[in-house]
């Protein structure tokens, strides 16, 4: 990663013509070859950029970046304030917090967090339109399909309704009720769930994980 802070002007030609007048900017040259011109603002978006693959010719007072699509980025360096290069090494990539999967696992372990007396039949119970997250039985032995989401939105409710319809065709399971569980259930999803005869529940992920909540409770 090469970072250059410089007073410069920038000219781009290609899909359109663009000119940046003289100002101090940050030039970023990443290891894969992409070049970006940043101002001190505008969040993550560069003012100008050129993706790899491209060719960078970096003369002391002028950089020219070109690519095979005929685009050309020309940076005129009037004063270089800083020019540093770091080796960032290999990037492990973005690992998303597997909250949804973990929620499903936690609820499978503690189905009573959804309703008193609920017992797990199996996780990922198969139907011909895909597996339903959890299939449970309540204290009276009737079946309950559970859809687990991180954010409870309308499409999740519809998805659960479809699973319930499929499961309901099985005379051994019928009648199947539904519970829509999410960390946060959007108001529209609440209305739709109630309308579809589905119970919705907001589950406390941290509490399920057994993390000590800062709030003191009686039980």
């Amino acid at each position, binding site marked *: 990663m090469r970072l250059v802070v410089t007073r410069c002007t920038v000219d781009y030609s290609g899909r359109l013509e663009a000119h940046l007048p003289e100002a101090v900017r940050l030039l970023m040259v990443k290891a894969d070859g992409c070049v970006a011109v940043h101002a001190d603002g505008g969040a993550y978006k560069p003012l100008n950029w050129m993706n790899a693959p491209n060719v960078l010719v970096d003369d002391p007072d002028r950089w020219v970046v070109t690519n095979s699509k005929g685009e050309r980025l020309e940076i005129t360096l009037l004063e270089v304030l800083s020019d540093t290069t770091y080796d960032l090494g290999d990037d492990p990539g973005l690992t998303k917090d597997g909250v949804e999967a973990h929620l499903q696992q936690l609820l499978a372990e503690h189905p009573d967090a959804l309703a008193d007396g609920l017992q797990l039949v199996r996780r990922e119970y198969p139907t011909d339109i895909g597996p339903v997250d959890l299939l449970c039985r309540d204290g009276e032995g009737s079946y309950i399909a559970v859809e687990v989401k991180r954010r409870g939105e309308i499409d999740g409710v519809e998805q659960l309704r479809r699973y319930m319809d499929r499961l309901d065709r099985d005379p051994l399971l019928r009648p199947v009720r539904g519970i829509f569980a999410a960390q946060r259930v959007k108001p529209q999803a609440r209305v739709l769930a109630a309308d579809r005869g589905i119970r919705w529940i907001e589950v406390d992920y941290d509490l399920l994980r057994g993390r000590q909540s800062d709030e*003191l409770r*009686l039980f």
Partner: protein
Amino acid sequence: MKFRAERTEFAEAATWVLRTVGARATLPALSGVRMEVAGDRLLLGSTDLEISSTLSIPVQAHRDGVALVPGRLLGDVVRSLPNAAVSADADADRLHLECGNARFDLRLMPLEDFPSLAAASDDATPAVMKADEFAARVAQVARAASTDDARPVLTGVYVEATADELVLAATDSYRLAVLTLGWQQDVEGTVLLPRRALDEARRSAEQLGSEVRIAFEDSQVGFDFGDRQLVTRLIEGSFPPFRQLIPSGYERRLEVDRADLIEVVRRVSVVGDANTTATPVTLHLSADTVRVTAGSGEIGEAEESLPGVLEGDDLQIAFNPRYLTDGLDATGTQQVALEFRDDLKPAVIRPTDETDDSETPVDFLYLLMPVRL
């Protein structure tokens, strides 16, 4: 259906029955009020499938019949009626109302979609309570119930009725209110009632006075106020075993004037958002003084002291101000005792004297979880 009724009575009856009108998109009929003329009485009824209300008023009946009238519209109409007798005449699809020179023509709703109204069965022997006593007891306990639908069991009030005792309990997991009332009644039942239903019954009891007859049945509980009835379904599920939460002793005990402490806590907590635990009030207890503080450097700070007698070592303990004042308010006596173990264990608020003006023996306690500082 055709009748003539006294305006005030008709308006009051319609307004009362509107409280349990439903609002479900899936069953529009629930938004209606059922009107029936039978004999010389007008019967009004509504339900939201959880609570049903019915009442009857005497009218000059001209023709028996039934109609389902849009609830909100009926409410708006009766509120604006001039001061004169009301004449009503319903045909197949319209209700014509006349009052003085005013005429209303209301489109009816299809009656066949309206569910049959729950009614208390005649078999159950009801418990009979004075309306004001009933209202006061419900008010003491129901406030501790949760308003969060995510755990339906906690939105209910636990009611345990036996021949010589009535136990009411409610908790939202941060506080617990338990009331035991001595009575002599021929009833037996343990039920979980929706807080909303009890609040409606309490409001009716306050408004109507006299007495309330409570009938416990397997799947419902009925409140009978003479000419009007509320029937509520029960909440399914088991109420937390609350008796084991009540500490058997204490290490510190504070006796303080209830009204003074409420006033001080309310005043001091204005520097915080009263509805969150994020800005708790802290009680600094010493031998003869309670110093109450609240706030933070960011918002502002407040403090005030009042006299109080502490048994045991000094203690600093913080509470959600609303939960604390709720408990103090519910306790009802002039002096209250607050029992503590330490700053992280639940505190118990109890009445200290028998200045409670009821004739029946009452035992009340309010258990309150502190807030970690």
